[in-house]
């Protein structure tokens, strides 16, 4: 494929984001429990927490960007 498309075969390499999006979020649910909600603190839990923090930061940054700029001290 050309430069505009990069292809990745999951049997050779898989990014954590693709893995988490599928293995933790999709697929058949047998027991009805969501493991992540009762997980001990571990690498993935910390990783997700970092992602959540990052999302919040992004949302705060977006909110700041949408804030109207400060009004002039006195309108003419």
């Amino acid at each position: 494929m050309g430069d505009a498309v990069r292809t990745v075969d999951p049997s050779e390499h898989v990014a954590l984001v693709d893995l988490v999006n599928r293995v933790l979020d999709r697929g058949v649910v047998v027991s009805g429990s969501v493991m992540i909600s009762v997980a001990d603190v571990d690498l993935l839990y910390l990783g997700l927490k970092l992602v959540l923090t990052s999302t919040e930061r992004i949302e705060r940054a977006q909110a700041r960007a949408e804030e109207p700029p400060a009004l002039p001290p006195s309108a003419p």
Partner: protein
Amino acid sequence: MSGLHVYCLTAGAGPPVGLAGIGGRRVGGWSAGGLCAWASPLDASPAPDARLLRVHHDVVLTAFRDSAVLPVRFGQWLPDPDALATWLEREGERMRSELERLRDTVEFGVRVAQREEEPHAPTPPRHEQPEPREYLRTIARRRAAKREGLARRDAVVGRLSSAVGGLVREERVVPTAPGDLAAVAHLVDRARVEPYREAVARFFQRQAPFCAEVTGPWPPWSFVA
């Protein structure tokens, strides 16, 4: 008796002898309801980490290489084999129907990004107080830029859907990772994998400044009902 961590379901094919799963435990096949569940005996549900997710993924891929498979979400742990057999008997018909629907299909993920940063209109430093008219223009520019960004995203996803539509059975919009503009999952017949890849490549060669990372073939994670 130990509990079971379940990896996936097949229509009957069991795991190869010697396949190791989470914790190095043997992956065995538990059959009931016309299904075979690939599972490892574990005393408790494993806490997820990146390494265990990859082990789970590898077991599902092993099943996927040789047969139709329904991937099971990580963390599905049952307290004993009887609980698994009960679930397989209860859900057997629905799961067999899903296996049949997804037979000979694979999933591809397409993450769309924009190559170069769009030039931004210069904004005055925060400490400078804009004139009222400039203040309103700034708001209007920001709102317009946001609308345009969303419209570009919707347009590129729509054009991609049209370009590969004849080669894709189903499409799901999936959550985007930071830095991505859009992400979709496509369900594709195994026999159409190469035409699909070529169609996606052709499409993005004409879509500058957009580019894509295509991952697959995956088991049909995003299409299990």
